[in-house]
């Protein structure tokens, strides 16, 4: 083996090594982002759950002052029951699953928005300290939902970019990660009800 050949092999080996490290790095980032988005999904779910947990209390308070708004109250409870019955498998978060989840949650948003509008008509209810606080809590949960959803979309966006841009796109042929779905904000369908008077 002469010197020239050794240098040649050395260079090829070096390049190969760099290449392998780059693959490893890419893979690790992808796994990390993938895991992070699953974790973030849990945060999204728990922020929605937090809102669902407020509803029985809210409904009871409103009932005391506006008993004959039965229809609206049942609507809220039904929407809540429907939304909490949906179980989303966090490992299979495709666009359809997210859409299903979102549809059920926007059912709650719509029903709550209506309830808040109805409660406008009851001055005693509006002056009730308990109601005021539930309202503040509800606003707070809507804010938390927005924060967690945005964060989820950000992480998923970063993941998708990673597997779609070069060199990640090439490497991903080996790993086979699939693009992840995000929350779509459709006009009006999941806009948080403005519970502000």
């Amino acid at each position, binding site marked *: 083996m002469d010197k020239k050949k050794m240098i040649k092999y050395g260079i090829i080996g070096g390049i190969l090594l760099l290449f392998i490290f780059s693959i490893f790095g890419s893979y690790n980032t992808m796994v990390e982002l993938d895991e992070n988005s699953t974790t973030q999904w849990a945060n999204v779910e728990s922020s929605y759950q937090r809102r669902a947990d407020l509803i029985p209390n809210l409904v009871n308070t409103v009932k005391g002052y506006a008993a004959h708004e039965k229809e609206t109250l049942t609507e809220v409870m039904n929407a809540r029951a429907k939304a909490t019955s949906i179980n989303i498998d966090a490992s299979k978060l495709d666009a359809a699953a997210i859409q299903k989840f979102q549809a059920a949650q926007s059912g709650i948003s719509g029903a709550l928005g209506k309830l808040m509008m109805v409660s406008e008509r009851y001055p005693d209810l509006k002056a009730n300290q308990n109601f*005021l*606080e*539930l309202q*503040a*809590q509800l*606003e*707070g949960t809507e*804010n*938390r*939902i*927005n*924060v*967690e959803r945005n964060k989820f979309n950000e992480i998923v966006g970063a993941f998708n970019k990673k597997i779609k841009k070069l060199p990640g796109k090439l490497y991903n042929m080996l790993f086979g990660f699939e693009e992840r779905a995000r929350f779509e904000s459709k006009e009006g369908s999941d806009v948080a009800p403005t519970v*502000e008077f």
Partner: protein
Amino acid sequence: MKKLLTILLLVLAFTGVSAQDCLLEKAPVPDLVQDYAGILSEGEEQALRQALIAFNDTVSNEILIVTVTDLCGYDKAKFTYTLGEKWGVGKKGKDNGIVIMVKPKEIDGRGDAFIATGRGLEGVLPDAIAKRIIENEMIPYFKQRDYYSGISSAAATAMEITAGEYSADEYVQPKLSLKKFMPFIFGIIAFIFIMSMKVGQTRRYASSNGLGFWAAWSLMSAASRSHSGSYGNFSSGGGSFGGFGGGSFGGGGAGGSW
């Protein structure tokens, strides 16, 4: 007519500062009191700042008071918690920051206030309590344009609750509010302190010059009048604030309008 004129003048005065760029685009300004709307006097700002710095030094919670003229097109909630998140108010990991935001009514006819709590303080200062602080401590004063009283009493309440001095429940059902007497107590302590200092000085002066106590007293007070200007230096003492620690906000808090 006169009232109209003052309102007009106020509006004009504020439009001067409303050229403020969106605060969310700016790099964090390491200061716990930032009065962009110009509703606090220099002295008021300083008093709040010293209290918040001392609080940060002892309890480590970071409370930012910010008054603005522009919410960057967001609602008050989103503006406030985004500011807290972006600037990292609170310590990293503890997420113990609070942002108290006030947009005075004079700018566009609608006053907005919001208290955003960092993720770590959502338990001790729940949204319902933040709402109460807004409604009970701030808005009544703001309606009378007494911005300082509203802001300082909200900040004082937030400090007391988050320092664990009393729980949120006790705030809701106060037993005997010590808070109301605090200024008195402070005043009395300060008075006693200054008097004892003076009496001590006078005694020394009297004994070293062979004078009676009251003669020395009158001589000394006459002398101190000439250089009373140096008293101002008293207030400038105090620590400084090093910068925000990278705390995170999850959307907690409550606001109100007037």
